[in-house]
């Protein structure tokens, strides 16, 4: 007798919810970026809570707005952005194991801090993998499509052994100014000095056009000065196309940096002035539009 495979019925998909695991490394030489959860640490934590392998697929819920109904009892955990979590309208804890009975509706409200919430279900979201991963690569259009109302997501077989911890003592992503640690280089020497100096000096603002490809930084209105745009200087331009990493701080001719996230292009043609430490790249994935952010130099 085989166990009934639970299904998550998507009652409400939310504005931008995708299936994500830890991506598909090893294919970059064929033009395929790693993709995967934008905040990998948060997905790993959610999986550990429900006793999954760290790389099991879960849901990346941008800004919240998700409602799902399991067809059988499941254990779930939500991490990352501060989305109010409820089962049949009754508030339940985040960063903790939550038992949802068959037919109950689990909702994730609008995030109050951070941008991306991760929902892991014990057994993992078991949609068919593409090239070894269930991640949606939004730039290349690889992997399962973004969630839509009415989707039915199969849940995989539960791993052996019960979850080991009930909750994780983690804090929500910050709401105010965020400081990201970055190592200078590899191509800061190709940029005008004034542009590089500005990178570290300015309190940037997160542009609303940011997505899973990258966080776009804008100058806050109060710091724009007439005729003082260093990007206007000669020297800012393109370089021979070269490999990009998640966390790369790419500076195009506009002088406005882009912090590459999980779905970054495999190669790029603008100088990379600095690269965020891996942990800071996770934190960059939680930045909200308009949020102030500074970059701080660290040694590798």
């Amino acid at each position: 007798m085989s166990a009934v495979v639970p299904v998550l019925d998507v009652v409400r998909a939310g504005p931008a919810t995708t299936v994500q695991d830890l991506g598909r490394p090893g294919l970059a030489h064929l033009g395929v970026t790693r993709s995967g959860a934008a905040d990998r640490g948060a997905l790993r934590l959610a999986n550990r809570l429900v006793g999954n392998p760290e790389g099991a697929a879960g849901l990346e819920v941008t800004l919240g707005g998700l409602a799902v109904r399991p067809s059988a009892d499941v254990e779930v955990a939500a991490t990352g952005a501060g989305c109010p979590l409820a089962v049949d309208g009754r508030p339940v804890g985040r960063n903790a194991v939550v038992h949802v009975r068959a037919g109950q509706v689990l909702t994730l409200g609008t995030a109050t801090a951070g941008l991306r919430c991760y929902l892991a279900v014990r057994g993992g979201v078991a949609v068919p993998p593409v090239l070894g991963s269930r991640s949606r690569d939004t730039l290349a259009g690889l992997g399962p499509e973004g969630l839509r109302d009415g989707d039915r997501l199969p849940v995989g077989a539960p791993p052996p052994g019960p979850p080991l911890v009930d909750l994780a003592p983690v804090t929500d992503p910050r709401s105010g100014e965020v400081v990201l640690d970055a190592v200078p280089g590899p191509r800061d020497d190709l940029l005008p000095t004034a542009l590089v100096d500005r990178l570290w000096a300015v309190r940037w603002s997160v542009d609303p056009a940011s997505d899973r490809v990258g966080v776009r930084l804008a100058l806050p209105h109060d710091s724009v000065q007439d005729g003082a745009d260093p990007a206007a200087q000669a020297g800012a331009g393109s370089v021979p196309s070269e490999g990009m990493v998640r966390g790369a701080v790419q500076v195009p001719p506009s002088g406005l940096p882009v912090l590459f996230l999980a779905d970054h292009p495999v190669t790029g043609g603008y100088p990379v002035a600095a690269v965020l430490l891996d942990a800071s790249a996770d934190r960059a994935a939680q930045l909200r539009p308009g949020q102030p952010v500074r970059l701080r130099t660290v040694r590798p």
Partner: protein
Amino acid sequence: MTDRRLHVCGDVGVLVDAGPDDVLPLHAGLHRAWTAGGAPDGVLDLVPAERSLLVVLDPARTDVARVSAWVRSTPSEPVDDARTAEVTVDIRYDGEDLDAVAAHAGLTVAEVVAAHTASPWRVAFTGFAPGFGYLVGGDPRLAVPRLDTPRVRVPAGAVALAGRYCGIYPRPSPGGWRIIGSTDAVLWDVDRDPPALLRPGLRVRFRAVGR
């Protein structure tokens, strides 16, 4: 080997500078060592490009110092034409920029076709989209500048030139390269192993077919 110029990319990558003709031998050497289990555990990706090769690593399993040492100690592998695989791609020379390319090169259209098919190209690196290869080694007379204004939509299978490169669009996308023809070859198929028709080092021979 120790004269390679390396740059760290945060705690997640090591970027190796290389001349345009040195990237493929460097990639071949590192790729062979990597697939044979000779790389540090935690090397995730090798990304050859125009004048560099990027090694991507998992900082939870290794670090930039160990990967840098591995890169410095791993010999390049000379590219051996006799041992590299070759594919033939059938192309209809019906691209909308074909006349402009001929005019730029000072050739007739027939001479452009002859130059494009005369000798095999080689995949130098990939990028832009899954399955897109930057082909080099063609007739230098075919080097043309990009369009001033990229097209909003280039159809899948378009064969195009830019700078010293030739490329084939794997799927419809915006693009600023000059289109000289089209092919029915499937550049990218996730259900095929490997999914990409073109991979670094592969030789590509173009064959003219009827319009």
